[in-house]
């Protein structure tokens, strides 16, 4: 347990993606089976111990210490699991080799609800504070160490020196503690052969179209489609099994029962999940968010935000694997295949006709629908290749939105940027014209060069108004202030932010040292984008 507890402690405080990968790879390399497999399952969120609930933890601690002292402690720490791990009466007396992770997982999974307090208490007694924290987080199901399922799979790929799509393809046929997977990654066994049905197929991805690209490409070799701003999905149906996967292979079927009930086919389809209907209106990304990351979806939400799939490609029809075929051939299969499906749930992405790149560029800049985020250009003659091959598919996004905003708060970065104020909260003007005030609209920490970072850092240090721990508020009024041109991909309504808007993918696109702060944009400019 010690190594797993230390891994969690390090992951949660390590901001760098590559360093997190290194921590995980080193852990997987050094830890024996089945502990590492259970750690992997825990990181990915595949472990569930239904008998252990936070309420029993509270009850357990209240039997063991003065409630007033516990109250002072909890107020100071702010996190229940951490407080309990620290105040537990055995302190660090349980230090030693401790209980192996696999043993902890076995006990937690077998325990009944009535025995849970005694079993959990015995585990906590034998542990250090750090191990107790790991056990409680494990038992209650939320690790929150900043590791996504995809990052954990990337660590596996790094461990085995393979591409991540090989992991994704296998994933749903594998089960904790993943002994066969680790044996393969370490070269001690053949690649596991999945026996499960309806497995994910690694998806084909595109590269951005740059100005250097298209003069070298012949438009006759390519078709074009609109790029819709939904969620890329893969629907796999074989036998009784029907699944909806994200493009990284996460199984999201449970969130979309309405759509899954309309899957009456045998095959694999690639497309974009959108809210609305193929024949009617296509709703915004904000509406789609009402359907994402929900474990259960009420009939009301299903009726209010119906989903459908705009199909881009077909990977398999019946038992026939179509991936080796050229796109032009797959497209014929796709059209025939989708014609037989429920027209309220499926349609085929339409082509955008063009004869020259200049013509396509014009169309890209004036999309006919607000939910279009650009153009996809695909070669007619390439098979369906997993990963991101250079050449066959290009995404050509419409230009980002930009707004001129004023720097309001700056926060110190971490790691390499620990001595720099590198995370910026910026705002736009609101209120009456003659007495405007700034309202924060977003936060960004990249988009500038190292040289520009130094300049902004100096500005922050020279214009600090107040300090709150690692955050400084910066002078920002109609006379003084640093204006950023902020680029972003879209805008959502937000009830969590005072401004009522939340930017998607904001980044600093230019420093406007030349622009007086009073001339930065107003909130109304952003609000008009919402209504579009």
């Amino acid at each position: 347990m010690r190594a797993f507890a230390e891994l969690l402690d390090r992951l949660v405080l390590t901001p760098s993606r590559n360093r997190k990968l290194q921590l995980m790879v080193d852990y997987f390399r050094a830890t024996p089976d089945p502990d590492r497999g259970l750690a992997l399952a825990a990181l990915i969120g595949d472990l569930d111990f239904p008998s252990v609930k936070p309420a029993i933890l509270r009850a357990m601690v209240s039997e063991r210490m003065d409630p007033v002292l516990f109250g002072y402690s909890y107020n100071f720490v702010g996190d229940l699991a951490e407080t309990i791990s620290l105040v537990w009466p055995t302190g660090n007396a349980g230090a030693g080799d401790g209980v192996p992770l696999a043993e902890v997982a076995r006990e937690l999974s077998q325990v009944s609800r009535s025995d849970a307090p005694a079993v959990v208490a015995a585990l906590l007694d034998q542990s250090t504070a750090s191990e107790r924290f790991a056990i409680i987080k494990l038992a209650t199901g939320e690790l929150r160490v900043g590791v996504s399922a995809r990052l954990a799979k990337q660590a596996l790929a790094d461990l085995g020196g393979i591409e991540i799509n090989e992991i994704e393809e296998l994933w749903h046929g594998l089960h904790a503690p993943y002994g066969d997977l680790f044996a393969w990654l370490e070269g001690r066994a053949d690649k596991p052969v999945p026996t499960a049905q309806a497995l994910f197929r690694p998806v084909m991805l595109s590269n951005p179209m740059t100005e250097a690209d298209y003069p070298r490409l012949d438009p006759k070799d390519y078709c074009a489609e609109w790029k819709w701003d939904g969620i890329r999905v893969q629907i796999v149906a074989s036998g009784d099994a029907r699944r909806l996967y994200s493009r990284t292979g996460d199984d999201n079927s449970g969130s979309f029962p309405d759509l899954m009930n309309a899957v009456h086919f045998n095959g694999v389809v690639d497309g974009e999940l959108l809210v609305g209907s193929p024949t009617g209106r296509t709703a915004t990304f904000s509406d789609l968010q009402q359907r994402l990351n929900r474990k259960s979806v009420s009939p009301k939400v299903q009726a209010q935000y119906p989903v459908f799939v705009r199909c881009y490609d077909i990977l398999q029809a019946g038992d026939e694997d179509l991936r080796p075929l050229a796109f032009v051939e797959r497209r014929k299969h796709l059209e025939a295949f989708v014609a037989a499906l429920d027209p309220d749930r499926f349609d085929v992405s339409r082509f955008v006709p063009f004869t020259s790149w200049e013509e396509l560029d014009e169309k890209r800049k004036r999309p006919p629908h607000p939910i279009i985020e650009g153009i996809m250009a695909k070669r007619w003659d390439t098979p369906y290749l997993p990963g991101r091959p250079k050449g066959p598919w290009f995404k050509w996004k419409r230009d980002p939105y930009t707004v001129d905003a004023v720097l309001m708060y700056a926060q110190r970065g971490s790691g390499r940027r620990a001595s720099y104020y590198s995370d910026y909260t910026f705002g736009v003007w609101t209120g009456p014209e003659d007495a405007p005030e700034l309202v924060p609209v977003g936060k960004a920490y990249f988009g500038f060069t190292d040289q520009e970072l130094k300049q902004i850092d100096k500005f922050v240090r020279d214009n600090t108004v107040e300090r709150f721990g690692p955050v400084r508020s910066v002078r920002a009024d109609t006379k003084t202030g640093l204006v950023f041109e902020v680029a972003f991909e879209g805008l959502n309504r937000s009830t969590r932010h005072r401004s009522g808007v939340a930017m998607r993918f904001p980044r600093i696109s230019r420093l406007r040292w030349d622009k007086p702060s009073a001339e930065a944009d107003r909130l109304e400019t952003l609000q008009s984008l919402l209504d579009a």
Partner: protein
Amino acid sequence: MRGHDLLHPRPEGLYCPPGDLYIDPVRPVPRALITHGHGDHARPGNSAVMATQQTLDIMAIRYGADFAQTSQPADWGVPQKVGDVTVTFHPAGHVLGSAQIAVECGGLRIVASGDYKRRHDPSCQPFELVPCDIFITEATFALPVFRHPDSKAEIAKLLRSVRQFPDRTHMVGAYALGKAQRVIRELRDAGYDEPIYIHGALQKLCDYYETQGVALGALLPATLEKGSKKDFAGTVVVGTPSSFADRWARRFADPVAAFASGWMGVRQRARQRGVELPLIISDHCDWDELCVTIEETGAGEIWVTHGREEALVRWCELNGLRAQPLHLVGYEDEAED
């Protein structure tokens, strides 16, 4: 004589009327007794100062030789008469030269412990238990959440990370007096014999510790003129906590921010400071040690100061001891600069 007549708080600090002296005053006074050299306890500008020789030396290093008009060294364990009281300095185990001060008059003994710790620390004298009637305890880590682990395990964690990330610089934030030297000494005890790089603010105090018999091994200044960032990859750099937010810190290769402090036992504290590798190494007692010390002194009355007084007062009540918070102003939490 009642406790209050022997010692009580005034705006200047803890005052003793029969000796006409203050302990660790926060403003200049005619006669001051100083427990140890940390800046919130030892301040310049007092007329007459009594402290251990090491504390006097440290004050001279930090404030210059004229930090007081007159100074008088106190020998360990030797009672001295000041006015109508007898004062005795006993080791507090906090930093080099740190003392508890026992004040006696009319058959009543109060021990003002200053800051203290019970753990083994290779860089200072060990704590000595002084039986007393009234014990004045600090409360820096007086919450049941503070249970410091063995510092050897924390040092081992640091060394594991140094091996795991040989391309990075491990930057250990440590208070300039006491903590820095202890971390360096414990690294040496753990077998680390590479040169350790130090921020300039640590140099004089490290030199002084050496003269007092605390061997710190090879220390080099963490400066480079025209070298590349890679120069410090794989090394350990020790600096004051605040220096890592300075522009000074920019010279190092992809630094791992480590911080040696009792506060690092709480994850949110580490996160707020941007610490990547928290090292729970403290100059103060943890909760269990505070409680044990209070019991062992045999004191019937406990005065609790600087920190989380309410939790320790509550514990005393639960254990049948008279206790009250002693509201002294001007003392800081450890390394919260």
